[in-house]
């Protein structure tokens, strides 16, 4: 077979491009979805409603106000009778966002599924009830101005 300039160039090109081609196809298997929920939930939130299995219920007095800050600290304003009496209204906890779930240290092992936009935050958790059925609790919040806790 006669080796021409053209065929030599083809061979060089082929060998040079092969690793690049493999890298391209290999990396194309990875997905590039960015979830910015952790940034969106940062802020101060006022509880507006609570529903249990879709039915309106009395608001959760342990977190009428919730301040989630960027350093993974969460401050809850607990207005329950016991906390008011004990003067422990301000409760601090840690938080994280993993696997699409909002984890509040004081609620673990239960975690919350958050849905948020600029001014509203909806968090939903599921728990087993005594009979073994799944019960859903949904808390709705609206964004309010930040508060300085001492």
């Amino acid at each position, binding site marked *: *077979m006669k080796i021409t300039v053209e065929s030599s160039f083809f061979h060089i090109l082929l060998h040079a491009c092969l690793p690049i081609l493999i890298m391209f*196809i*290999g990396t194309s298997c990875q997905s590039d979805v960015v979830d910015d929920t952790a940034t969106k939930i940062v802020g101060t939130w006022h509880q507006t409603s609570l529903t249990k299995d879709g039915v309106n219920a009395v608001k959760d007095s342990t977190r009428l106000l919730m301040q989630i800050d960027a350093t993974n600290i969460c401050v809850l304003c607990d207005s329950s009778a016991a906390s008011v009496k004990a003067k422990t209204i301000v409760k601090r906890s840690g938080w994280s966002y*993993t696997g699409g779930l909002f984890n509040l240290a004081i609620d*673990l*092992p239960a*975690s919350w599924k958050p849905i948020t936009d600029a001014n509203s935050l909806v968090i939903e958790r599921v728990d*087993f009830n005594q009979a*073994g059925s*799944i019960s859903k609790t949904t808390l709705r919040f609206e964004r309010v101005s930040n508060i300085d806790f001492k």
Partner: protein
Amino acid sequence: MKTVYRLFILLLPLFVLSSCQKDAYDESIMVGLWKQVSVTEDGIPISLTPEQANCQLLMEANGACRYYHQSFKSYNKGVGTTSFYGTWSMLDGKWINFTTDKWQFIPILSSDSMKIKLDHREIIRAPGDTIIVIDTLTSVKKQWSKYHIQSRFTILQLSDTEMEIRLKTFVGEKKYALIFAPDPQDFVELKPVAAGVMNYSPKLVTDQNYWIIRKEFQTLKTYIFKFKKETY
């Protein structure tokens, strides 16, 4: 030579594309609510009590796992604990690790007679009428030590609807643990205990059952748990 190169170029994408296919299970399929369907011990189905049959696992994407069973429901006047928790993680898409509560078998034997040491207490039935009984609460607390440990299961089957996992372990390791719903007859209610304190423990160890339980911790068996996915 040219033909060989052309063939190579044609086959290359096939090679590379096939490398994208997974030979391991996808972790995201694990997330959800699973209801226990069956348990086998060395291939023989275990007959589950009604309390065990109702067992469910709620596996969440953050690695937390919550269990439901009714093994201790009859405790505390019928409102005993039914919800338990631990963690889960998948390893190399082939194994699944669960952390659950387990109890270590640590009964004390008398050095001279190799008899189980039990605590006793006096009960005054009437003035001058006193009986001595075994203090079960104090005794079992000294015989069993609760800890939290990881068990690694092999995934035999995992799909959107079914999960089958296998664990090779000692009979006692499975029996006196929350993998996943224990048999109520292997546990006792602890009372009186303060509210919020765990009120269940493996049964009292006596001279009659000591060697049976000890043997259980030396007998290896293979357990296969089957679950089906539930919607919620």
